[in-house]
């Protein structure tokens, strides 16, 4: 009997329970696929594929948390709608224990169908999804189908537990209320919402604070440390403004009698007041979920599409070799021999060197004090002071011209600088003051004296020397205060290095001179990658560099390997973003659907009364249409504003991943927003239909 009744109830309420069932199935399927991918058994245990497992593990936690929150939300909504029905059973003579049994059967049916269906769907789509992921991360191993038992177990446990908790919640709320109270629940007169000024003001402050942070961060590091603060503030602000702010605004409109007592305003203001009271939290949810979807997808998409760019910037040539040496400690590298050795290495793998380019440089931080560039900050009464600290990349005029194609001619004592922020004085002194404050035993400091300089040329192009540290390249965009200083000759650079070496106490604390070699090769991407892995790939296979003079350190990077690495990381990121984006989108759609349907039932009665009192059908339709549109597109609008403010932060955060193609990011954001809007409008159309079907 109870089973039949439970089955009947579910069918009778299919308008509400079918979406609930789909939600369970959808989230269960996503959860299963995530756990299966996180423990992917068919991936080789190479380092670069470990990213996927890491990302998917993050995904499992996000999806799990999301599932818990979302299923609780949906269940609470369903219970609220059904209280009247359950109260009626109670009044008709069913004991609470009996109703409890009916509810238990319902949960069992829904749970079985949802979890089993979800896992089945998950298995079905696992293959497809895995193929997509492997494509995205450019991994080309054939896929074998397997069943992830631990994934099934985890899915069953998580969803079983959540549904059980939901059932317990439902039973408890039922036990607490008398049947009459339950029956009245649906039709209880709603109190007019009160204006909560404090909350509204808090909302304005939080949102303003969040936006201010987004507009004022100076660089990527700051953006990273403040990002979640900004997100938190914006979320709080959104909730406050949707709930209290909207009502405060409507109340102000209502107070203005001239405005309020006009046919269109009268109905829509009072209608909106109650709509906002009932739906504000739902709308704020929609707004925040939409923002998350947009930010996630546009961010990861632009990162993914920028991957090639990033790899090229990081490693400007097929092979980039960097050598460090200290001429003042007697290092004498044989550059020609090194270059030959690299060419031989390529030839041993059947590839020809098509282009070879070398340069020498060094990097040093100077502290600007008036018109002096000092090696260390000034000390006044034990306090260190400076006007600005600039990390300078030194190159000779010849190397600068070779790297950028920009001609530079200098005499001794003259400098050409690329200084985008204008930190360096046009005329001044380089001061090589010795570090004598706290000498270690055996260290001797030599004051390097003072060199006068004149800047005769301001350059705009920062040469791309590749790598992260310590060479300052175009890719190294973290932080600011970077500049490139071009000196007249290689000899001048050696002189500068000696002065610094002395000032640092004749130790390697002063760093090294750097010799870079760009090598471009013939052959396909795969051939170049294989050649690199076969030769430089590990210590055992690394080429023999004896008889190339003396030096400290030598290493070679491959553009192709960097690319593979970035694709596996950014691809995993992208996939996670899209996958979670779709999940959140699903949630958004469901919230919208429930909102529309429940509002439909509430509006039906009001609609009928107004008609009886003499409002024209069309007028009512127009008014309701307007309210519906406002309620529907408010979250989208707010999400758009959030995304616009977030954009700067996102660009800065992407710089952490070496991605600084702002044009591409803009394009990705606009594209994501357009696609999202189309989808949103589509959902509106469908749900509005459901709504009008109920009302009319």
């Amino acid at each position, binding site marked *: 009997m109870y089973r039949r009744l439970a089955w009947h109830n579910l069918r009778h309420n299919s308008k509400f329970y079918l979406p609930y069932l789909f939600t369970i199935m959808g989230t269960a399927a996503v959860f299963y696929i995530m756990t299966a991918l996180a423990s992917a058994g068919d991936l080789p245990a190479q380092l670069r594929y470990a990213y996927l497992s890491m990302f998917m593990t993050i995904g499992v936690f996000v999806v799990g948390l999301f599932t818990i929150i979302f299923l609780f939300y949906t269940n609470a909504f369903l219970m609220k709608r059904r209280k009247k029905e359950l109260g009626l059973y109670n009044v008709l003579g069913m004991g609470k224990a009996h109703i409890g049994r009916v509810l238990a059967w319902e949960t069992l049916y829904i749970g079985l169908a949802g979890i089993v269906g979800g896992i089945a769907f998950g298995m079905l789509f696992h293959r497809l999804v895995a193929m997509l992921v492997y494509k995205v991360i450019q991994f080309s191993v054939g896929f074998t189908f397997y069943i992830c038992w631990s994934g099934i177990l985890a899915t069953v446990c998580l969803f079983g537990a959540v549904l059980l908790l939901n059932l317990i919640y439902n039973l408890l709320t039922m036990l607490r209320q008398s049947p009459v109270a339950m029956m009245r629940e649906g039709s209880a*007169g*709603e109190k007019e919402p009160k204006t909560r000024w404090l909350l509204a003001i808090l909302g304005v402050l939080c949102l303003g604070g969040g936006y201010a942070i987004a507009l004022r961060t100076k660089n990527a590091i700051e953006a990273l440390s403040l990002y979640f603060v900004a997100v938190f503030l914006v979320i709080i602000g959104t909730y406050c403004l949707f709930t209290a702010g909207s009502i405060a605004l409507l109340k102000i409109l209502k107070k203005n009698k001239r405005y309020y007592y006009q*046919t269109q305003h009268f109905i829509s203001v*009072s209608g909106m*007041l109650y709509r906002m009271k009932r739906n504000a939290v739902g709308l704020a949810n929609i707004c925040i979920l939409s923002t998350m979807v947009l930010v996630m997808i546009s961010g990861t998409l632009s990162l993914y599409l920028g991957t090639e760019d990033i790899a090229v910037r990081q490693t400007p040539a097929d092979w980039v070799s960097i050598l460090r040496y200290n001429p003042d400690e007697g290092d004498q590298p044989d550059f020609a021999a090194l270059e030959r050795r690299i060419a031989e290495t390529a030839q041993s793998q059947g590839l020809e060197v098509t282009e070879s380019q070398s340069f020498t440089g060094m990097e040093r931080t100077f502290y600007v004090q008036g018109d002096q560039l000092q090696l260390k900050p000034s000390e006044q009464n034990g306090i260190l002071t400076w006007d600005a600290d600039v990390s300078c990349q030194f190159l000779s005029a010849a190397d600068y011209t070779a790297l950028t194609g920009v001609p530079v001619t200098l005499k001794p004592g003259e400098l050409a600088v690329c200084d985008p922020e204008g930190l360096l004085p046009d005329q001044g002194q380089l001061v090589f003051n010795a570090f004598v404050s706290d000498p270690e035993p055996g260290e001797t400091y030599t004051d390097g004296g003072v060199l006068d300089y004149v800047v005769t040329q301001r350059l705009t192009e920062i040469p791309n020397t590749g790598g992260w540290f310590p060479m300052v390249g175009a890719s190294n965009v973290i932080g600011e205060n970077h500049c490139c200083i071009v000196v007249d000759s290689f000899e001048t650079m050696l002189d500068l290095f000696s002065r610094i070496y002395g000032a640092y106490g004749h130790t390697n604390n002063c760093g090294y001179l750097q010799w870079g070699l760009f090598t471009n090769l013939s052959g396909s991407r795969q051939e170049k990658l294989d050649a690199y892995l076969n030769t430089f790939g590990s210590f055992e296979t690394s080429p023999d560099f004896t008889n190339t003079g003396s030096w400290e350190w030598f290493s070679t990077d491959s553009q192709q390997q960097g690319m593979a690495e970035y694709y596996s990381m950014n691809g995993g990121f992208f996939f996670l973003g899209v996958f979670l984006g779709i999940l959140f989108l699903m949630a958004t759609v469901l919230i919208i659907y429930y909102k529309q349907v429940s509002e439909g039932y509430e509006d039906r009665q009001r609609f009928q009364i*107004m*008609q*009886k*009192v*003499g409002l024209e059908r069309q007028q009512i339709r127009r008014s309701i249409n307007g309210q519906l549109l406002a309620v529907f597109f408010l979250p989208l609008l707010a999400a758009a504003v959030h995304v616009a403010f977030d954009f700067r932060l996102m660009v800065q955060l992407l710089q952490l991943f070496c991605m600084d193609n702002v044009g591409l990011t803009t394009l990705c954001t606009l594209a994501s927003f357009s696609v999202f809007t189309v989808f949103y409008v589509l959902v509106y159309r469908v749900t509005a239909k459901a709504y009008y079907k109920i009302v009319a």
Partner: protein
Amino acid sequence: MPLLEVTNLKKVYTTRFGGASVQALSDVSFSVEQGEYVAIMGESGSGKTTLLNILAALDRPTAGEVRLSGKDMEQIKERDLAAFRRENLGFVFQEFNLLDTFSVEDNILLPLVLQGRTYPQMAGALETIAKRLHISDLLKKYPYEISGGQKQRAAVARALITQPQILLADEPTGALDSKATDGLLQLFEEVNLMGQTILMVTHSVKAASHAGRVLFIKDGQVFHQLYRGGNSCEQFYTRIADSLTVLTTGGGD
């Protein structure tokens, strides 16, 4: 000329696919004079509600005509109907039909707002009607905060604020306790004495006994009518009850 004139009214409901048809009204004719208080009685399914819906211009008759102040309601265009209802008719319903989202004041003002009056005009009309119906201290409250009797008073105020030619009441005492019923009937008598024409559909003998004339409807026709004349309420009550007994025990065939 009578205020309301109903001649040979007929209403047939057909199902959508033209199957079985139900005759709700077969042939109804009656008229109401200015300032009259008329009650229409009949059992459930006798066609009372259909009749009221047609009078309220919420439904169109299959045949026959309804004239209000000599104007044929059939001639009014669909899009002017709502305005016509607003200007000429006032409604009181069994379940009050107050909007929960408006305060009592705003509920009463709703028809005026729909007419597009200015706020000072509305405020004046509201004050007058609120005093007359003794609801001045309820105005700022919300429907869910007041009793059934008070809600019905508010509904009456909403119906009367436009100074309609005729007040249509559909079972106005149906959802009220006896004390509130007495109050409402007394109120109806008062407004009727001030010249308001009232047409009330009811199956409460008590409610009908306060009217000046009672029409009995059976099987879609006006079957019988009683004038109160010089009777007191109690005497009229007995006569109505007697007529009803005849009606329900199948007399007249």
